[in-house]
């Protein structure tokens, strides 16, 4: 903390309060401990102060007051009266970075046999860590076109694959089949962490539909379920400059 950051009035309050509160504490403790403060003053050859102190409570208060009257002008000279901020100063950032968490969301549709769909979120700050969660809900088989034979059809689960390819070529893949009962599917990858001093920016994330799963009617099987819509949640940690002139990471 810069010493000159505080105004004289703030310093004066701090000094006065400290002298009363902590000086007072020491004073009362000294009585309990039977410390002879006047003997200490005598050793310091402060004869006039000693005689004032020995006049009793009023003399001792006077000594405290004189100490304060000596300290405050010294502070006034050292700090400069009226110095210090009246309002919070505009933010003057030093070079400090902090981690910040956020979530990016990307949605898309992948079809069976189709090309992998790009799902890379647009994140500018340096990403140092991330957790990826791909979620989808499989189609309800009773949705059109159920067809004349699909009175109580069952839609077989879909399988989706999530692939993360880092700028250095390292690839991580995860795939899963959705729950046939709830129809909810999820693939998780992570936590992915950047190497020290590096970042994950420049990565490529894709989603592909490995298998859409046929719709099984009572009498006939048909293949109207060609793929699925999905949402990718990217929980990421970035380094942002909380202070300093830099706007990029360290």
């Amino acid at each position, binding site marked *: *903390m810069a010493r000159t*950051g505080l105004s004289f*009035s703030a310093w004066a309050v701090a000094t006065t*309060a400290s002298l009363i*509160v902590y000086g007072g504490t020491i004073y009362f403790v000294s009585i309990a401990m039977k410390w002879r403060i006047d003997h200490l003053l005598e050793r310091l050859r402060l004869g006039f102060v000693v005689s004032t102190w020995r006049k009793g409570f009023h003399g001792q208060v006077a000594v405290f007051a004189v100490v304060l009257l000596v300290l405050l002008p010294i502070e006034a000279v050292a700090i400069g009266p009226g110095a210090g901020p009246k309002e919070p100063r505009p933010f003057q950032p030093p070079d400090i*970075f*902090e981690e910040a*968490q956020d979530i990016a969301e990307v949605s898309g549709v992948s079809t069976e046999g189709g090309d992998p769909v790009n799902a890379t979120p647009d994140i500018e700050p340096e990403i140092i860590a991330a957790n990826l969660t791909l979620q989808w809900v499989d189609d309800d088989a009773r949705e059109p076109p159920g067809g004349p034979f699909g009175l109580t059809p069952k839609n077989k689960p879909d399988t989706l694959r999530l692939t993360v390819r880092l700028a250095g070529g390292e690839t991580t893949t995860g795939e899963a089949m959705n729950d046939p009962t709830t129809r909810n599917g999820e693939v998780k990858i992570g936590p992915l962490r950047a190497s020290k001093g590096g970042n994950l920016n420049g990565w490529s994330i894709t989603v592909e539909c490995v298998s859409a799963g046929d719709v099984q009617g009572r009498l006939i099987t048909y293949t109207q379920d060609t793929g699925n819509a999905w949402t990718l949640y990217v929980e990421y940690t970035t380094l942002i400059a*909380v202070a300093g002139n830099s706007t990029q990471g360290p």
Partner: protein
Amino acid sequence: MADEEKGEDLWSGRLGFLLAAIGSAIGLGAVWRYPYLVYEYGGGAFLIPFLIALFVSGIPLMILELGVGKTFRTSAPFAFMRVNKKMAWVGWATLMIGFVIISYYTVVLAWSLVYMFYSPKLSWGGDPQNFFNNEVLHLSSGPGAIGGVSIAVLAMVLVTWLVIYLIVVKGIKMVSKVVMLTVPAPYILMTILAFFTLRLHGADVGLEYYLRPDFHALVNPEVWLAAFAQIFFALSLSTGVMIAYSSRLEKKADVVNNSYIVSFLDIGYAFFAGIVVFSTLGYMASAQGVPMSEVVSGGPGLAFATYPTAISMLPSGAAMFGVLFFLMLFTLGIDSAFATIEAVALGLKDAGLNYKRMSLMVCVLGGGLAALFATGGGYHWFWIVDNFFNEVGIVTMGILECFIIGYLYDPDNFVRNVNETSELHVGRFWIYCIKYITPGILTVMLVAKLIQTATSGFEGYPLWSLLAGGLLPLVVIGFIGVYMSRRWPGRD
């Protein structure tokens, strides 16, 4: 009770008593209430009414409580009974109000413990307020809905009460050992935190707000009332603790100087805590580029929402800072908790009941009540009960204490007794404070509170909840106090 009978209860030395009394007096309010009041009511100028309140109300009342214990050498109910048989209920009511306050106070200690374990991973994430409301409190929609409960908080409530029981059951001797650790600990931890926070960018901005005096505030009567109220609550007066503790002092014990030491160390800690709190808030405001008014808060919100936000923003050592801060909160509060429970147990012991059995019973009851406050709905009750028990119950007991000693007892005789063994002496000024100034100001505080509640309610809570959580329990406690004073008429 004769001294020989309770010889094992006596403090082994002055240091043990002083530390226990200081530990009881200093509470969480030093961190989350006092600094906020200073900011709100004139910055450094607030110290003027605060110090005046200390000398004309706080210290005189502290002398009264330590003097009552020393003079009558028994707990609050039986001390007041010696003055006037009809006044024993005041002592019992004081102890019961303190007991209820501690039951929700221990929930705050449990939050501190839970947050201490959350700190290494900064588990509150990017939205500490939301985390506190949903993951810690499981906050319900209102006092009528019990809501969920955090198993972690519940477990820590039980741990806290187990700690309290293990200390209280062993009596004064154990307390004098425990306070050797728990009273210096918050001072040491706060000093470490101060070294850390004072170096932060923007700390001086926060300190400027904390210390720079606005003398215009002194013409506002509300500022003076706040200063007197803060002194009263900061010294943990009218909870029966100081009377119980000083009743276990040896006959030659000093009253006046002990009162000064306890009071000065208490406000010294609060002043120091303000420096740490405001340097942290100054850093937070600077880092976020927002005015101080947007980050300053008081109460649990400061400790469990604002501070975690600040901790997450620290450039380095955030986890360590978090652990130290929440450990400091726990050590700060645990003394007040076991002191109050000890006072209740000593009161029951002085009634002739088995001390160990009563300690267990009080802790089991307290733990059960605390578990209710730990639910999602319990947080709403926390505020309602705190509002009435502190600002109506405790203040009423303070007025009655002054009345009992100032008017029913002979104050000159009381002064003679206190001065007899004290290094510093009190005189007419003390009597004047106890007969007129302190009860007068406490009455103004009480009336202002009642008028405010009657006209504006409290935080929008429904009337039924204010009656059920505030006024009704206080009235019931008054009646139980009367019953207990007849059930146990005391013994010499």
